């Protein structure tokens, strides 16, 4: 399948990426391409230009800065899956990364691309909410930091506005224990329901849900100690694979499985 025509530009700095975005308002950033290219092949997206940000030095890699883990937006799922820093300080991310799609998807796809795309069935949004992560968003007028709670706005919608780009994910290195339970679509491996639970060093527990609704959300009932009827079917998606009622039931099941492991 051919995509529509587009101009291609590979950039090597965030400043160049932002300048190119300004010059081509209907351009799109290209990271791993594993959401964008399938969408372009179906002609659901036909950007006039692609700005390839996948090899900007400095946007790839995972490091510890004091008690904050900084993950560059162009870090691949594969690098997250195998990171010893994350396995030690934030094990829910390698656990999730290993469940994304298949090895070839993980070799190309990036955490920044996944978060910016905000597919309702993506895995990381649940852990971002449960970890209390923050996203660094840059534009030609400067940088701002948004909490995960404010980042996921709706289906395929985030706080990243036109002309902006997600550059880093900041995660407090305070996980005491964590678990992610996913009921995967048997063909695509995307989440039909995914529940993330993180116990933090300060004694608080945060939990979040992905896959079931239009976007990832916190699970306040679970955080308050309840383990049944965590969400209402009226708030969930329904399709030929899973009805809203079935998804609501699965949320309770996945939550119990996750709680048993934290």
């Amino acid at each position: 399948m051919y995509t529509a025509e587009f101009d291609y530009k590979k950039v090597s700095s965030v400043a160049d990426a932002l300048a190119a975005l300004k010059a081509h308002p209907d351009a799109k950033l290209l990271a791993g391409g594993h959401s964008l290219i399938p969408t372009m092949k179906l002609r659901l997206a036909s950007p006039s230009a692609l700005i390839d940000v996948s090899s900007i030095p400095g946007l790839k890699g995972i490091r510890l800065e004091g008690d904050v883990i900084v993950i560059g937006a162009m870090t691949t799922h594969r690098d997250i899956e195998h990171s010893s820093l994350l396995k030690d300080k934030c094990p829910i991310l390698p656990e999730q990364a290993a469940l994304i799609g298949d090895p070839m998807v993980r070799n190309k796809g990036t955490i920044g691309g996944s978060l910016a795309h905000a597919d309702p069935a993506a895995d990381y949004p649940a852990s971002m909410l449960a970890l209390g992560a923050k996203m660094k968003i840059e534009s030609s007028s400067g940088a701002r930091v948004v909490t995960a709670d404010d980042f996921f706005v709706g289906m395929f919608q985030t706080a990243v506005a036109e002309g902006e780009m997600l550059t880093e994910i900041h995660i407090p290195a305070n996980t005491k224990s964590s678990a992610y339970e996913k009921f995967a679509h048997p063909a695509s491996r995307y989440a039909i329901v995914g529940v993330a639970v993180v116990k933090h060093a300060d004694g608080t527990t945060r939990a979040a849900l992905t896959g079931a609704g239009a976007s990832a959300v916190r699970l306040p009932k679970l955080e308050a100690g309840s383990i049944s009827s965590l969400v209402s079917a009226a708030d969930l998606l329904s399709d030929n694979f899973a009805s809203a009622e079935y998804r609501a039931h699965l949320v309770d099941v996945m939550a119990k499985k996750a709680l048993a492991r934290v």
Partner: protein
Amino acid sequence: MADKVPITLTVNGTKHSVHVEPRTLLVQFLREHLSLTGTHVGCDTSQCGACTVHLDGMAVKSCTMFAVQADGSSVTTIEGIGEIGHLHPLQQGFWEMHGLQCGFCTPGMIMSAADLLQHNAKPSEAEIRHALEGNFCRCTGYHNIVRAVQHASGQIQNQAQAADD
């Protein structure tokens, strides 16, 4: 037409400097520009893995990237890993263990399995099945594909021995 872009990439050890339209998929470049038709297109929707090649040593779906993204990289296709008389251990394994029927999925299976064996020389059956999750086969039922990978990794010898297991 969008401007063609100059790219340089190495495919199976041979360097190519060409101009391509940005929307040319890597798999189209390999099959239609270089006539390397061993890499197959099964679904064209990123699901089946028939188009798997190595990009700088890593398995990727060549239907889900543009040739321009491979600029400066080294690509290996099924044509680049062995030849008649000197088969790659995985090619030999598929031969010995009857790991294919129609053969359509086989190039992708071999390239994915080759990525696995690079960092896990003796994978368990579960690890092999997990690593091949992105490769669909509509003929074999996967059983002999797993045995082919076990054969290539020196864990079983031949069909007679496998039958005794």
